[in-house]
């Protein structure tokens, strides 16, 4: 099931041995497919680092590159060509998946720029997420209250009881927190603009704001998920 593939990167073209620029997908001399070029996801699409990108152009470029490097184009090629086609396409897909999604793109670029982002693996550390230093101050009180209500709800459910008032309160709270997403996203988009246009000082400030906004967003989505799960159970 699991096979080992060699990921050693040759310096010169593996096929014709002529040296070439590392960022090319195909050898300029013999046209053979090359190992994944170095660089970040933006470079895969020949883009400058930016938070705002044109999605239709990105998709078009993704399709154009897919046609060139996809393993389906190398199904009957030699072992090495198939191997690099696989690696190149995996990189292309990973890059596209990350850049097309606004949140993933934001996190990715912030990390590229050296910002520290709260570890986010969906499913990992759910309960440990409530690091108090990361809880947005203005949400502290309401979040605390909602967690109490959730606990009450779970207890009531265990006893086979249903408290309509509690249910209504929780649904109300959920609605409110859901409503806050819009504001966070709007703030994020504003910071994108600042960063994309700004000098290094304003970029640093924008990065800091964005990290805080992402924390806030993650916190909100955890709250909403907790309610959804409890109410749905």
């Amino acid at each position: 099931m699991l096979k080992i593939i060699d990921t050693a990167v040759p310096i010169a073209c593996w096929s014709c041995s002529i040296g070439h620029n590392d960022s090319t997908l195909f050898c300029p001399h013999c046209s053979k497919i090359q190992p994944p070029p170095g660089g970040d996801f933006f470079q895969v699409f020949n883009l400058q680092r930016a938070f705002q990108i044109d999605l239709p152009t990105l998709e078009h470029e993704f399709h154009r590159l897919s046609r060139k490097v996809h393993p389906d184009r190398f199904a009957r090629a030699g072992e090495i060509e198939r191997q690099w086609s696989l690696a190149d396409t995996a990189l292309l897909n990973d890059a596209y998946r990350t850049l097309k999604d606004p949140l993933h793109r934001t996190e990715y670029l912030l990390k590229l720029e050296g910002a520290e982002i709260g570890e986010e693996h969906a499913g990992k550390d759910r309960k440990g997420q409530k690091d108090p230093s990361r809880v947005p101050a203005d949400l502290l009180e309401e979040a605390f209250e909602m967690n109490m209500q959730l606990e009450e709800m779970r207890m009531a459910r265990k006893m086979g009881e249903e408290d309509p008032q509690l249910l209504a309160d929780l649904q109300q709270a959920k609605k409110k927190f859901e409503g806050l997403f819009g504001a966070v996203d709007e703030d994020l988009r504003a910071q994108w603009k600042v960063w994309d246009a700004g000098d290094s000082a304003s970029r640093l400030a924008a990065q800091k704001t964005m990290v805080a906004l992402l924390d806030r967003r993650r916190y909100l989505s955890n709250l909403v998920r907790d309610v959804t799960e409890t109410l749905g159970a």
Partner: protein
Amino acid sequence: MAEGRVVGIDLGTTNSLVAYMQGDAPVVIPGVDGHNLVPSVVALDSVPPGGGRPTVTVGNTARKALIETPERVIYSVKRLMGRGIEEIQSELKLFPFRLADDMEAGEVPRITLGELKFTPPEISAYILRQLKRNAERFFGAPVTQAVITVPAYFNDAQRQATKDAGRMAGLEVLRLVNEPTAAALAYGLDRAKEGTIAVYDLGGGTFDISILKLRDGIFEVQSTNGDTHLGGDDIDNLLLAIALDEIYAEHGVDLRSHPGAVQALRKAAIDAKIALSTEPVAKFDIELPNGDRYQREIPRDVFELLIEPVLSRTAGPCKQALSDAGITPEQIDEVVLVGGSTRIPAVRQLVDDLFHLAARGKKPHVELNPDEVVALGAAVQADILAGASKTTEEMLLLDVTPLSLGIEALGGTVARIIQRNSTIPASATEHFTTGVEGQTNVAIHVVQGERELAADCRSLARFDLRGIPPMSAGLPRIEVKFLIDADGILKVTAREQRSGQAAKIEVKPTYGLTDEQVEGMILDSFDHAEEDFAKRLLIEARNEAETILSAVDRAPQSPAWAQMTGEEQSAIAAARDRLQSVKLGEDAKTLRDATLALDQATRRFAELMMEAAVTTAIRGKTMNAADEELGEAVTAPHPMAAAEFK
């Protein structure tokens, strides 16, 4: 040397098919019996007199053995592919799979068939070998490369088991293609469509839903979901269980101890199910071993109530797929129905409700035969992979992985590293370190699934990173790269970054065969030898000649014979004499040409016979049923596929 053709294979739970691209259209290659569908049934003949290994038969011949020697026959083996012993307990209750009695924990299940034991990939390999032979007979040339379809929701182990089966059958599997995606390819070929389509695929044993975006020849899967143990089989089992219970209650006969009778009853249940797609009522009428008759009517509304719980299990995956794709039902432009079970009117109604079709003045696509569309799509993908075809050069399929990939973290939780519905190939890089001074091994457990705890997910493999240079705890930095390839199968590489050494990985797949085991199970490896191939072609050509000659010998007894002109009759006689004269020759091509000539000469006769049959006794029945009903008399010259000799 010109490369051989790449064929497309639908390896189904109930039926299997092989297709290829004929010019710019995919066509299914019929078997020797003229049928496109090869039942996925494998039977072991009795031990030949004097001992030796019994031969294996596949398809319709094997299906006939189901009632006479059920202990030597296996069907629906796809349900067992890539699964462990503990996982198949529920299947064992519903299907007559007989596990070998010397099974050990962790072993790939082996099924007893007569005197012998086979793993599920071996059984599938026999089916694949039959399809390969059908294609070789059709082309008159060896076939060694194929695209095989799998349910989109198949996990890593089920995919690997399918690839193993291909290898055992002597086929290089160029790609595993997801069945619903293949169906979309078949539909997308003739009209340059744009838009978002949903493929609802309810087959014999599996259910898939896939949502795709079509644009400029690119078929980009947005999301997929499904259930690998849900299909027409479940409906058959419901009907069967009711009949068995009623027979026991009303006649005091426990048929469960008569495997042959259960199979006869199962066939009756399937017939009833099929009839209910077009008729308001179906009937059971079975003679029991004690001479009683079990007679029962099943009205369609009762049937629909009965199967509702099965059908409604398809709704959840559809809604999840829509949500994962981030769209509403209204944004689906077209729905394609695939799989024999989508002929059931209640299924069509459910699909209509799920995607709000009628309300939007739309109808699901059923233009292509739902039993064949997956194989046709596989042929299109085979053509894409073979390259150098004008029809498909602009087409490209971008599929996704159906299940998230994760690794077990501390406390038994899952750290997800590749999310479901990621376009494949996809990769993720993770870093690991040691927890103890001088530790040289790190154990990693890879799982597939959406649950929070590793124990609730599907265990894929456990492996050890070995040969880590001894360092202080936490100092080594081992980079592990997980890559899901274009077949949806995981590959892993690792490297210790501080020493630059590639860490050794010893992978122990949780389910599945090792390379060596697969190697040892390769069916008759002499299959490739040219002289064997020629010999086999000759034998097959002779068998075909015999079949058609005996049919022609019986022709004058048929009333249709009198409708033929004298000229037509003598043309048949001439072609028959010609075939008789070359029958014992050594040249397969001459023999086939003469067979083909006789087949053509008798074509009108065959049509006359079919017409007479269809217009009288059996209106409304399928050709297949007509065949069975008319028995010997209709053994009309079978339709021969055009051979392509070089």
